[in-house]
């Protein structure tokens, strides 16, 4: 137990990220099921109140983006990246532990709002955030949201931002500096490349939302008017800041999944990734363009025809590198020897579903067309095809692919296929009808709709689909759990993968590589035209390898942050100071702790 609390081993931290994020994924999913249950009937539904409903969709979005998808990707960054680049750990192992604890505590802080009502003298138990996951000003002002709900949201996101930024810097440094000899940039596995791009997006995008949240905090706590028109501020400023973060965030969510399937498809087609350099460069181009499209979330705010045209144009450009990636993936499958493992099925599912989300994205990019779609269920369908059909299917593919490496145990392929087909059927039943609900005039974020709208049947289909996804996820959860009692019999390279993580035992020893390998090709474990597979590493290290011990200080430092946030929430300066003291002492002790790599 202690060894898990103080661990700085990237593999253990990866597993901690995985299970924590999976827990939040289940919570976010439960929120979605209540939302869907409510909408099964028009005119009042099943009786969920407007206030509760608003909390549920706000927390569903916030949880899935910040507490489930990002950290599930982080689980793979942690576990897989050092193995793929031939390193013994990340560059800053204790900072890595700190990121995890901050993420966990930030997530608990946000969700504590569900039961914190009595502390604030609220009517009910829950004072969860209720202004939507992008918290548009000026609804978030003290005047229109007087309770602690929005405070929980903005403070929780500030805490989580610290975790993301620390991890972002850590992985940029790790990937650039910790590569094994011969691992040139254009020999990096595609997953490592997409991770690197993602982390650059994280360290450039998160400061923007940090600034926005600080301004909002000033408006709410100290009476400033950054976003309040009555005091000369501008609510649209919030939208610009939020989406300057928010659109890169979309690529922060999808690029890791694109990286995952760029590993899975070559392995299970026994062919190298088609057009490796183009896949890498198109990832870079997507990230760059991702910075220049934020206002396409704001076409209905009246930006004027020039701005609308520019942002419509840049947004459409993104379709090009994305299309290139899709063709390259199909090119990878083409001419291969495809083995239909669960991992491959999810990777193919990613391609098939992501196309739908991409194409509906083009209808959003066209500003006038978007006017009839934005803020309706059509855009809800779009984000779910991209983030569920894309990111989540990609992550599932990665879990089936790397689980034997991470635990030494195989997931059941039989249950995996049940999971895959139920998920695919469920998601299409849930999300495809939403296109119609939206185009028939159903706005998003409504707890009730009139029967006369004619969208009841579409909503019922969506609800059935959502519950099928729920069942699929339970099958998956059981599949994960039961591996604990399965034999640890996975060989080093069960799928015949080409990258370095498959050169070492499953699960890897604490030091990863007995000898740091020297890399001579992009596919070190495969026979290619010019290179043979690399010579196997020795079973035992030739000399003892020093591995760092654990440290309490990252976790203790992390505990200071929610204490500060609780002080701010309760307007009690002494608690804020106490939390700050914990952080300062923690960092001081951490800095002077004897700790060797």
């Amino acid at each position, binding site marked *: 137990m202690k060894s898990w609390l103080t661990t700085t081993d990237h593999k253990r931290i990866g597993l901690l990220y995985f299970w924590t994020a999976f827990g939040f994924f289940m919570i976010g999913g439960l929120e979605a099921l209540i939302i869907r249950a409510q909408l099964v009937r028009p005119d009042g539904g099943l009786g969920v109140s407007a206030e509760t409903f608003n909390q549920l969709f706000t927390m569903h979005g916030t949880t899935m983006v910040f507490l489930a998808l990002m950290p599930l990707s982080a689980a793979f960054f942690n576990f897989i990246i050092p193995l793929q680049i031939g390193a013994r750990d990340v560059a800053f192992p204790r900072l890595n532990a700190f990121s995890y604890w901050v993420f966990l505590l930030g997530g608990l802080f946000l969700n504590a709002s569900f039961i914190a009502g009595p502390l604030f003298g609220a009517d009910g138990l829950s004072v969860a955030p209720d202004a939507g996951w992008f918290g548009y000003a000026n609804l978030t002002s003290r005047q229109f949201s007087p309770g602690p709900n929005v405070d929980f949201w903005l403070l929780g996101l500030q805490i989580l931002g610290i975790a993301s930024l620390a991890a972002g810097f850590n992985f940029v440094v790790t990937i650039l500096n910790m590569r094994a000899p011969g691992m040139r940039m254009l020999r990096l596995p595609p997953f490592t490349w997409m991770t690197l791009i993602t982390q650059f997006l994280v360290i450039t995008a998160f400061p923007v939302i940090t600034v926005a949240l600080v301004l909002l905090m000033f408006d709410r706590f100290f009476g400033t008017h950054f976003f309040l028109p009555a005091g000369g501020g501008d609510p649209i400023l919030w939208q610009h800041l939020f989406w300057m973060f928010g659109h890169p965030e979309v690529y922060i969510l999808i690029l890791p999944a694109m990286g995952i399937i760029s590993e899975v498809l070559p392995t299970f087609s026994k062919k190298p990734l088609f057009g490796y350099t183009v896949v890498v460069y198109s990832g870079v181009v997507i990230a760059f363009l991702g910075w220049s499209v934020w206002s396409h979330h704001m076409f*209905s705010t009246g930006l004027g025809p020039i701005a609308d045209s520019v942002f419509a144009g840049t947004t459409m450009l993104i379709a090009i590198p994305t299309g290139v990636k899709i063709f390259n993936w199909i090119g990878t499958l083409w001419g291969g020897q495809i083995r239909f493992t669960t991992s491959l099925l999810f990777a193919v599912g990613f391609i098939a579903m992501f196309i739908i989300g991409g194409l509906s994205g083009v209808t959003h990019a*066209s500003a006038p067309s978007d006017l009839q779609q934005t803020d309706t269920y059509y855009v809800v369908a779009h984000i779910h095809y991209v983030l569920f059909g894309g990111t989540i299917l990609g992550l599932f593919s990665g879990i089936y692919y790397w689980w034997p490496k991470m635990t030494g145990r195989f997931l059941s392929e039989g249950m995996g296929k049940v999971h895959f087909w139920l998920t695919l059927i469920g998601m299409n039943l849930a999300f495809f009808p939403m296109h119609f609900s939206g185009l028939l005039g159903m706005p998003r974020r409504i707890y009730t709709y009139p029967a006369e709208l004619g969208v009841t049947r579409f909503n019922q289909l969506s609800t059935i689909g959502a519950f099928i996804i729920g069942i699929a996820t339970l099958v998956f959860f059981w599949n994960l759990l039961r591996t604990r009692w399965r034999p640890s019999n996975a060989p080093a390279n069960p799928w015949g993968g080409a990258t370095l993580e498959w050169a070492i035992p499953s699960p890897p020893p604490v030091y990863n590589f007995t000898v740091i390998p020297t890399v001579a090709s992009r596919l070190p474990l495969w026979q290619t035209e010019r290179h043979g597979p690399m010579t196997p590493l020795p079973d035992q290290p030739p000399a003892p390898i020093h591995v760092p011990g654990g440290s309490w200080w990252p976790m203790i430092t992390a505990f200071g942050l929610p204490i500060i946030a609780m002080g701010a929430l309760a307007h009690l300066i002494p608690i804020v100071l106490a939390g700050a003291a914990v952080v300062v002492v923690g960092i001081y002790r951490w800095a002077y702790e004897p700790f060797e790599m």
Partner: protein
Amino acid sequence: MRGAVYFDAVRFVPVLVLLLLTACSGQFPQSVFVPRSDFSSELAGLFTNIFWWAVGVFVIVETLLVIALVRYRARKGAGEPKPVHGHTALEIGWTLAPALILVFIAVPTMRTIFATAGQAPEGALHVEVIGHQWWWEYRYPTLNISAYNELHLPVNTPVQVEMTSADVIHSFWIPRLAGKRDLIQGRTNRIAFRADSTGEYWGQCAEFCGASHANMRLRVFVQSDSAFQRWVDQQRAGPATPAKGSPAEAGLQVFRRSACIGCHTIAGVAQGKIGPDLSHVGGRATIAGALFPNTSETLQRWIMNAPSLKPGALMPPQNLSPQDLDAVVAYLQSLK
């Protein structure tokens, strides 16, 4: 004509698919597929254009994917696949192809952006829309009248809409006629459109605006010129004065001595500014933000406990005796 689903030839095949799916379950009063104005027709035309490109791309890519999966599935005894790393000409080709398709989408997009930029021609009817949590206020500055939740417009007349908000951001959306455009405090947004058929059109707020966002609905009545003029004349006239000794007359007294006057205006009776003006409330088809039909029964329930019908509504429950309630409802309904 209200709510009927029409087809403009095969222009809206999605609607056909839709009808098959729903087996004609009814009408779709907020469908974007049945536009009844120049503005909404432009948007629908553009969407249809992109839709068919998207269908084409979808079919091609998914077909290639399925062919790859079927043709190249692992077979016993097959040799190792050729380790192809790429194909430059092919890759240039599939970079240029989507770029070319996007030109065919981008050009009409830009054209439509400028065509729908919100400037109505000279002589258009001006309407100001002000969003409130959770109801709509309309002002006709040239006609010197106001309306609430239900917008009346003359058919085939260009309308210049200028919109702003009294509180949080709302979004004005009548799918078959216009929108959507956000209402933002401290800013004025514009749209312009011309409704081409008379009838009743539905809309609602599209931007999340707090507790009763779902209940912030609206109606638009597009009328012939003469019917519109009659409505304008009615609004210009003062509120009806109830006959002596009628139940409505008793209701007026109840209204005068109750909390109603704190928030509502009735010309010559009360001057409250927080809620909608009730001078002509009896002539409206709906109450409470187009949420309920305007009947004695719904009015009674609304007056007795508005927040239970519309979460977050500012109007507190009124503790009126049954006689007073009947009287005040009779009075409100007399205000045609």
